[in-house]
């Protein structure tokens, strides 16, 4: 995982799409396995079969929805980087809100506003947590000043030879 850094901009869309798809597939697989296990008829074997069927049927759809979200988010993010000429948390927040709004476009204006709000708040939370972690982990990288000697006790020490300013 150390080898993973973000791609430069146009390829970031593909990369984020794939990451979101993977996340959705694994997360959806776990979720659907539990759901299919609970909803299946009784009997351990049948429950396992129900779990498997639910994973096969539903988790690619969840993964696809995630991938659409990730790709749209990254596209808007890159467009904002190009327009605003800078990368900061506001880009992510704006593109999260825009993604939420665009993907709910078929459900009417109130749903769009709600989704946009949720998307913006979600991305703001993520960015906030990221900044918080950066601040916390930056604490240990602060340069420490070398221990200074007390200037009042320097009297009996020889000055280091060589360079003397007059």
């Amino acid at each position: 995982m150390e080898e993973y850094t973000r791609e430069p901009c146009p390829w970031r869309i593909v990369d984020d799409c794939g990451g979101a798809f993977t996340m959705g597939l694994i997360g959806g697989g776990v979720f659907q396995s539990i759901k299919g296990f609970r909803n299946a008829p009784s009997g351990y074997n049948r429950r396992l079969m129900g779990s498997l069927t639910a994973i096969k049927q539903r988790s690619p759809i969840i993964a696809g929805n995630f991938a659409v979200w990730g790709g749209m988010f990254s596209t808007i993010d890159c467009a904002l980087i190009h327009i605003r000429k800078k990368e900061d948390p506001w880009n992510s927040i704006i593109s999260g809100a825009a993604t939420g709004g665009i993907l709910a476009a078929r459900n009417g204006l109130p749903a769009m506003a709600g989704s946009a709000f949720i998307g913006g708040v979600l991305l703001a939370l993520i960015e906030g947590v990221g900044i918080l972690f950066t601040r916390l982990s930056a604490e240990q990288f602060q340069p420490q000043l070398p221990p200074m000697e007390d200037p009042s006790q320097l009297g009996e020490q020889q000055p280091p030879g060589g360079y003397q300013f007059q």
Partner: protein
Amino acid sequence: MSSLNDSNDIYTPNYESSSGIAGNLRPFSSPYLNFDPGYIPQTQPEFIFLDGASKQRGRFELAFGQIGGSCMLGATLGGASGFYNGLKATTLAGQTGKLRRTQLLNHVMKKGSATANTFGSVAVIYSAFGVFLSWTRGTDDDLNTVVAATATGLLYKSTAGLRRCGLGGAIGFGVSTLYALWNNRDKLADLRQFNPA
């Protein structure tokens, strides 16, 4: 690509270079630059590698790009195929105007998302196998590709009966073998050039 130390290493300045800076000591362009900039080789690319890092991008680093790429490819192919099928179906049904437009949109969205999901799932399984193999074996070569693709085909069709499972594995094996052969085509050409006499 020439490695750093085959013909001229970085310590011998190439006097014949056309850059004009190397060789005859030019007056330095800046009082803060206390060395001759001609000593920096300018004709060859400079690579910076961390100590002990592999000189190639690993499978994990490429995985998300591959997954996203295959997902988008699936969406494009599926969308095109859905558009074609929708055109045919609406023509057969005699639908026109608004109804036809909506039906076309439905066809494109349905087929596109289904194909994208299939392609993406296959890519995720393949990447998982590939990362796992290269992690356990410690190397990253074409054997990983072939084994991962075969296992992907077997796993993806594992619930559809023994015959189709084997068919999926065979397809994975065939595609990955073709890819590996294409990847090593210059090595194969060298092999054919070998003359025992």
